[in-house]
């Protein structure tokens, strides 16, 4: 069975290094730094170049899109921003549904 050492809730806001983030997303460190330069991603600690685990799913998804859709860097960064906005909207929608007794949607 999987154990405590092996698991991480991505929304737990655990600090991860740039190396770990790059590895998770199949990117190079340089590519992650580029995203930060474009303003598409913000380290939680700029001096230590660590990131919140909350960005992992988004970076992975954008990296897949970049590879599969053959996107250039500007488009890659833009996709990241849109994914962040989509995440925020989906979260807000869930909260509103719950408060207003609307049926749950995925």
């Amino acid at each position, binding site marked *: 069975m999987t154990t405590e050492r092996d698991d991480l809730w*991505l929304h737990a806001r655990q600090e991860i290094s740039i190396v770990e983030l790059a590895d998770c997303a199949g990117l190079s460190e340089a590519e992650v730094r580029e995203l930060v330069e474009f303003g598409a991603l913000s380290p939680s600690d700029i001096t230590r170049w660590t990131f919140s685990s909350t960005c992992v799913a988004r970076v992975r998804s954008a990296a897949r899109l970049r590879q599969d859709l053959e996107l250039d860097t500007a488009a890659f960064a833009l996709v990241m921003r849109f994914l962040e906005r989509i995440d925020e909207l989906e979260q807000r929608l869930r909260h509103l549904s*719950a408060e207003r007794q609307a049926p749950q949607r995925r």
Partner: protein
Amino acid sequence: MKYKDYYATLGVDRKASADEIKKAYRKLAQKHHPDVNKEKGAEEKFKEVAEAYQTLKDPEKRAAYDQLGTGFQPGQDFRPPPDWERQFHTQGGGTGGFSFEDLDLSDLFEQLRGQQREARAKRPIPGQDYEVRVQLTLDDAYRGTQLDLDLGARTIKARIPKGATDGQRLRLRGQGGKGMNGARDGDLYLDIELRPHPLYRPAGHDLYVDLPLAPWEAALGATVEVPTLDGAVNMKIPEGTTAGRKMRIAKKGLPKPGGGEGDLYAIVQIVNPTVLSDEEKALYRQLGETSRFDPRGHFAGEKTNDD
């Protein structure tokens, strides 16, 4: 081996230029990519399109594919023509007895004569990550649970610690595909979906529950029992409570990862019986006559505006 018509998959002519093939791929890839398109079957369709493109975008692979012949129907069982293998396939010493039946068409183009043979160089290849959607009940999320996951190649027992909520992900390190030549194994990501619950609605780690009150309970105040995932609690309803009021029951929501809990919010609803006895009707009538309450006072100002 089943035939696949890669040109038809991309919607292009067999004589299409490299540019036309690229454009066709991009259009279909954008449409069906599972990170964009959340409909059922999108991922399947995308994989088909990607496979077709991988073969047709490479001039050597495309030539080899074209040489398989034409006139086959998609899904039809077929074999490459006798010369094909000698011309294109690099497996030393002929087929060596391996059966075409066991192959997928895409496997034929993995290694062609004249292409780089990376398999000989022991290049480390990290294991593939898997992403699986998993449905949990609120109770599973509340207490933590253990799931048996069928990943095709194997089944694993995954421990789901407390901290789950709708739309969040759990990463299980090293539970993905095997890494090759010393590279690390891939990870397993569980994408959590909470099943609807008859009472509670999650919003992050908070929970919402409707709290129906009779008109006299809301007007006069009352003590009511509210169920929580952690047993029932008694709640004091102040007199003069109105509909829609959110009443917080601290720490009775879902556990957060790393400790702490969300809250449970009871949303007051004032409900009326649909069938009244004569006695009840009489009492209501009396109340209506006695009360000076005007629920639609604010309409008065607006009504005079259409002169």
